[in-house]
């Protein structure tokens, strides 16, 4: 009887160990795939719609820490977890956009977005916002004519307020990350093809 009881305990213990090992491996695989997935692939894990990147990362707009306000009136906040950082834009009480990236995507300069107000009654504003890699304290926005303008990095994020480039005028092409000692720590392009910031309405 005693022997039967100890055999039963052994079976339970081994089943528990197996379950733990399997769940651990699954959690590791999930974390790993989340790290390696591109923004589009990561977003595809949840239903489409506003705050999709946040939802796919288990983050919420309500947890965002306010960072700065853009010239177009949008407020930008930051929310993050161990894997993903997100810039969240809001206009009044309305959600107005998100830019989410992992540490490696931020290091590659793939956490930059460009918003263009191209409608005729608007102010033609262009907002460039993004997340800077570790070690960058300043960001230079490089223009096609070689000129540049700089902004400081706040809690890992930056913004450039400007206007959409006029036809045949110089236009921003990329950013350069600058360290505390003033030296370059890397560069990245903008996610825009040439000077196609505003797009046709026909």
């Amino acid at each position, binding site marked *: 009887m005693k022997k039967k009881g100890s055999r039963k305990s052994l079976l339970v213990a081994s089943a528990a160990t197996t379950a733990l090992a399997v769940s651990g491996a699954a959690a590791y695989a999930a974390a790993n795939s989340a790290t390696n997935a591109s*923004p*589009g692939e990561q977003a595809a894990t949840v239903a489409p*719609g506003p705050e*999709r990147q946040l939802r796919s990362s288990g983050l919420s707009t309500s947890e965002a820490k306010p960072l700065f306000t853009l010239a177009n009136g949008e407020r930008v906040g930051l929310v993050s977890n161990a894997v993903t950082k997100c810039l969240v834009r809001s206009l009044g009480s*309305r959600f107005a956009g998100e830019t989410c990236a992992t540490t490696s*995507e931020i290091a590659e300069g*793939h956490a930059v*977005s460009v918003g263009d107000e191209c409608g005729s009654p608007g102010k033609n504003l262009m907002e460039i916002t993004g997340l800077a890699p570790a070690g960058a304290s300043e960001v230079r926005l490089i223009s096609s004519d070689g000129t540049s303008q700089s902004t400081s990095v706040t809690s890992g994020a930056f913004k450039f307020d400007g206007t959409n480039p006029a036809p045949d005028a110089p236009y921003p092409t990329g950013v350069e990350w600058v360290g505390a000692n003033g030296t370059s720590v890397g560069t990245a392009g903008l996610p825009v*093809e040439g000077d*196609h910031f505003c797009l046709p309405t026909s």
Partner: protein
Amino acid sequence: MRKLLRTRRLTVLATSLVAAFVLALSTAAVASAFSEGYGGGEICGSNCYIQSGGAHTFYFNEGSARGEPYLACQLFNTNHANEVTHGYGYCDVFYYGGEYVTARVYNQSGTSHVVSGYAET
């Protein structure tokens, strides 16, 4: 006793009316919402685009693709609305003007990618 019963009946009636009103409001909100998924095929990378089937009072449009191609999301009409946002592998754009607008997602990466779009009112 009769008075108490009458008061209870009135309370039940009032509660039912309020519940019916709230239900009608929420049903109307659900009925007025419209969403559309579009694209999903491979498009070229030289400013090729996918587009919604028609214009609606879209306030939100998003685009996504595998990899991290340059994508541009647009909500526009021929009147004066034209909002554009560019991103890597994912983009979203908002238009709160309340007008009928068409939703588009451009592939600006230079190479072909499978691109999907989704817009909602």
